């Protein structure tokens, strides 16, 4: 998996340690604050997108050459306000095709069964050997 981009550093997003499924984590702080006491929805969306990228990169790690990954669209449901706590996100590759990957990605805080947001993201795989 490639290293996370500068935008991830801006959000404070890192790869969760000792995790084989590309789970990302984002600490609470001023850089991700929305209304007082809550995460900004845009920061949650940014974390979800980064986690979707990470799960896809893990899934295509063996492809040579590596395709360029371009986001096509994203649909997100905000389910609970994000509080002043660590937020985690992990993507699941629903289908990995030759040119399109469909990813479901979820975000949670203390309890993985109580999601704060979920999203569906479609990516275009460009320049892969078979594209």
């Amino acid at each position, binding site marked *: 998996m490639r290293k996370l*981009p*500068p*935008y991830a*550093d*801006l*959000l404070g997003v890192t790869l969760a340690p000792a995790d084989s499924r590309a789970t990302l984590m984002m600490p609470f702080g*001023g*850089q*991700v*604050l*929305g*209304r007082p006491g809550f995460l*900004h*929805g*845009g*920061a949650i*969306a*940014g*974390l979800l*997108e*980064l986690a979707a990228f990470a799960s896809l990169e893990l899934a295509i790690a063996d492809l040579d050459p590596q395709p*360029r990954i*371009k*986001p*096509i*669209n*994203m*649909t*997100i*449901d*905000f389910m609970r*306000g994000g509080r002043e706590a660590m937020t985690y996100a992990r993507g699941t590759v629903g289908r990995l095709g030759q040119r399109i990957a469909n990813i479901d990605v979820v975000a949670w805080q203390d309890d993985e069964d109580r999601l704060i947001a979920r999203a569906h993201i479609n990516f275009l795989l460009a320049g892969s050997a078979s594209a």
Partner: protein
Amino acid sequence: MTEAPPSPESPPAFDAERFFKRMGSVGHNGTLDIQWHGAADDWVELRLPWRDALIGDEEARLMASGPIFTLMDNATSLAIWRKMKAFRPQATLDFRIDYIRPAGSGRDVIGRGECYRLTHSIAFVRGIAHDGDADDPVAHCAGTFMFTGPAWSL
């Protein structure tokens, strides 16, 4: 229709520009350095200045899509209050963004958010983002916000 002249007791109408300039410099909006760009009755424009820190694709030096999401979430959210001429607490319920093309490397992105329908509980919004030419957008968005409390006088 004529409006009654404002009485000393009536709260001033919501001023989206003043509100954003006061609140926009803190938290995640401040981190992204999002700026006020303009407004009319039912839309608000914000500007996201280019910075290397927003890069999501280092090879092509392209802006990540997350900052554009935040830009559009903010612009559409402000457009709701601008249309209502009042501040009412709200939360984003759902949002969809189509990333039509990458924003040009090094270019600022302008987001125009519009509220096209208000109901008792829900506001329906849509918008576009562009990097200089509104007829050649980089993204389209559509979403809904739900109100979480009564309107406030500011």
